[in-house]
Structures are given as C-alpha cells and as structure tokens.
C-alpha cells in the first residue's frame, strides 16, 4: 500500500510516497530525514509543542517555552495542561528547564528565550 504524506520535518514540505509493505520505502524525499519522518508518522506520530507560561517580573507577561524533543501527538493537549499550571519569575535564561520530564516522557519543557 502506498501512503502519500507531506514531510513536515523541514519547511521544504516534500511530497512523500511511502510503500508501507516494503519497510516504509520512501520516494520524493530530498533528504534522509524524510525517510525517518515517514516511518514515524505512520507508526507513532510525534510533534514539538510550543506555548507560553506566565512570568513575573519580566518585560512581558508571557515567557515562550517548547518541549526539547517531540512528544506523541496524543499527549499534546495533556502537555498543554501541564504548561498552563506553571508560573515562573524573571530572570530566566533561554534553555532553562521549566518542567522536568513532562508526563514521564523523558522530555523537558524549556524556556525558548531569556527574559
């Protein structure tokens, strides 16, 4: 069976054709990440989650954060719930861990700027 996908691993957005029976053989990719993406997307799709948390004492009221790795698509809204519970205080450095090992995924939520 051939599955058609658009690779979202980078903004090139290659159109992939994946032969599921032939060990997820990929055509249409411009680099190897497309091959990895295709297999993962068809077996266990994952995404980086980005959002903001409340910050006290910063120049703005929100600090942008991201997961420092991809989490299962099914967990995105649960990760958002965790992020929305957090409040931090300035100063924060870009990369500081905001939530360690969120939902036991081995992934941290980290600050994506200094403030």
């Amino acid at each position, binding site marked *: 069976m051939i599955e058609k996908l658009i690779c979202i691993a980078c903004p090139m957005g290659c*159109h992939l054709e994946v032969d599921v029976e032939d060990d997820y053989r990929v055509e249409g990719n411009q680099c190897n990440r497309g091959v990895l993406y295709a297999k993962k997307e068809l077996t266990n799709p994952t995404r980086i989650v980005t959002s*903001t948390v409340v910050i006290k004492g910063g*120049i703005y009221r929100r600090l942008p954060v*991201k997961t420092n790795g991809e989490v299962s698509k099914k967990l995105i*809204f649960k990760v958002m719930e965790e992020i929305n519970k957090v409040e931090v205080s300035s100063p924060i450095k870009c990369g500081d861990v905001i939530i360690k090992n969120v939902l036991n995924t081995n992934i941290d939520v980290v600050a994506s700027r200094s403030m």
Partner: protein
Amino acid sequence: MKQYDVVVIGGGSAGLAAALEIKKQGIDHVLILERDAELGGILLQCIHNGFGLKVFKEELTGPEYAERFVQELLEMGIEYKLNSMVTKLNPDKTIEYANVNEGFVKISARAVVLAMGCYERNSGSISIPGNRPSGVLTAGSAQKYLNIDGYLVGKRVFILGSGDIGLIMARRMTLEGAKVLGVAEVLPFSGGLKRNIVQCLDDYDIPLYLSHTVTDIIGESKVEKIVISQVDNFVPIPGTEKTFEIDTLLLSVGLVPENSLSERCGIILDKKTKGPVVNESYQTNIEGIFACGNVLHVHDLVDFVTEESRKAGRSVVRYLNHELNATNNMINVLPKNGVSYLLPQEINLSNLVTPMDIFMRVNKEFKNAEIVISNGDTVIKRIKKKHLAPAEMEKFILKDVDLTGDMIDINVAIEVQS
C-alpha cells in the same frame, strides 16, 4: 550632525544579519535603529518551531533564532537604538528619527540598509460586505496579544485567508482552548506552506475551505456570525452559503513590504513584490541605499532572509570600499509565463559575484514542470520541479558558465512537461 558608515533601519532578522556581516567585514560605525522595545522583529512573537534549519542546522523557535543574533551583536559591540522610529529617509542618506531620550535627531550615513520588514493587510484593504464590528482583527495582532501578553482574543474563531500566520494561529488558539471552525481561502490553493496545512490544520481536524470567501459579517458591536460562500473565479456562487457562529474573525490575507519611508525617498518599487527594485548587490535605484528581508519581498523562511541580508551586507562593504563599479553593464531579469516575480530585477554584470542566487515565485500551482532560464531566446538551463506553488519561494543559482558570451536579458518561464 552625527556621521555613520552605515545606518540599518529595522532590527529584525534582516537588519541584524546585515549589520553583523558589515561589522565582521571591518566597517566600524554601524547603527541599527529599531522602533520596538527590543531587537528581533517579528520573530519574537513567532514562538512556534521551524526556524533555522539551514542557518543553524537545527529547528529553533522564532525567539531562539533572534536571541542567537542579538547575542552575537552584543558581543561584536554594534551600536543600536531601541524605541527609535525612523520618520524620514532622504536621498542624500540623511536619516531622521525620534525617541523619548533624544527627541528628534538627524544623522547621516555613507550607506543605508532598509530592513523594515512588512505589515499585514487588514480589513480596510479587503472587501467584505457587512458590518465592521469588533472581533475582526489580523492574525498577526492576535498572535502578538496571545504570545506576548497572554491574551486570547476569542473562543470561537474563523480564519479568512490561508497565509502562514493564520495557519499557525489556528493551531495556537486551538491549543489554548479556542474552537477554530475553519479557514477560508478564496484561491483554489493554500497561501501558506504545506507543512503548516498538515501540522496546524490536519492535525486538529480544522477544515480548509478552498475557493471560499467570507460574504457577510453579522453583528452589531461585536461579530456574531459570518457567512462564507464558494466562489467561481472570485464571484460567490449563490446557494453555497455556510453560516458560522463565532466571536472572532482573523484575517490572514497577505503581507505587504513596509515601504512608506522608501517611497517618500524616491526609491522605485516593483509592482509585484511591493518592495524596492534592486540589482545584484541588493542596491536600490538610489546609490548607497540597499534593501533586504521582508521589506524587499515577503519571505516564508527566515533562513533565506538571513542569507539574503548577509549578501546585502557584503555588498554594502564593497560599496563603501569603492568596489561596486558604477559603469552601466546592466541586464534585466524578466518574469515570463508562469512567473510572478524575480529578484533581483537587474544585474550589473561588472559587479556580479557568482554564484548568484535568484529568488522567484510562480503565479499558480504547477506539477511536473521546469523552470526554464534563458539569455534572450537561448536556453541557459532547465530545472525540473515536481511541485511549484505561489506560497513557496523558489531559488536557483546562476554560475559563471551560465553568464558567458553576449548577455541580453535573462528570461525565466515555467514549462509544463507533457
């Protein structure tokens, strides 16, 4: 009057990259003027990931990408002024700006870099019948409210236009608990990157209505409902109306390079890009005034902005070192069948540094096509492309061998393979 070697107007990714390159090449008196309270530009509100894969070989968020450049800028000791709005640029390269500490100031520069970015088309510039109640705003302002101030503008949202900011906001507002009912795009294809359709709409089952537009906005003081209709060649088809109860309509109907300063200075703009007409050195029709980034043409990828701005920076240095040959050996780069625009629009062969990047956009979607590049009528090269779409900027490279012999004009067209 204070004198600088170079004044950069705008401290977004374009201005930062250009200033850094200029300083690295040994020019000392560089000043960045930025009207906001921080350097970084639009990147600061783009908290999603997807930046920097080319430049840093990793996927960063907008603020992270900006911070790397700002850090470098601080280390290099480049002068910048925040909360400083440039109010006038003159052809003699004097610049007028204002801020709270200094009041109104006039300075002069040997070279100027335009890096003012772009602005969003708003409801005034598109024609939707019906009222103009509150609750109708651009996707970019909603993004700023949410990501910088933590204020969610609405709970039931519809988005007009499939530009990237709208798509990104569809996902962002969904994650924050809003219900995004759909996105309508008047054209038969999306205005945003494919990856954003996948990861912002498809991931959250948000419908994209292609060839649809908003035909009515209902609500007295606040928007209550909208009606969308299918269109045939921009004309609404009766009987295809769908009504949505909403509290917010976001507009993501396009970005326009911010060139009011440039126009008043007498800089010639391209009708298609709405940015300055530039040559191979990113120089405008006024000698010593250069342009890069979204002020020149709207980019979808910050990495291209950075690359372009570094090149513009190197040209500025060549100009200051009197290495840009003023003698006219100019050819045009002309869009033909299927091509919406090309950049640069002109090449002075005496000043050309190869390999040279040419950016382009097509004017509709193509499958299995070729970009055909010719010198006059003689084909120089053909580049095969499986997909070409207006939302995706293409880049090709001209090398020395492509530019030998008698150069007439470079024509670029799209041919569909049969």
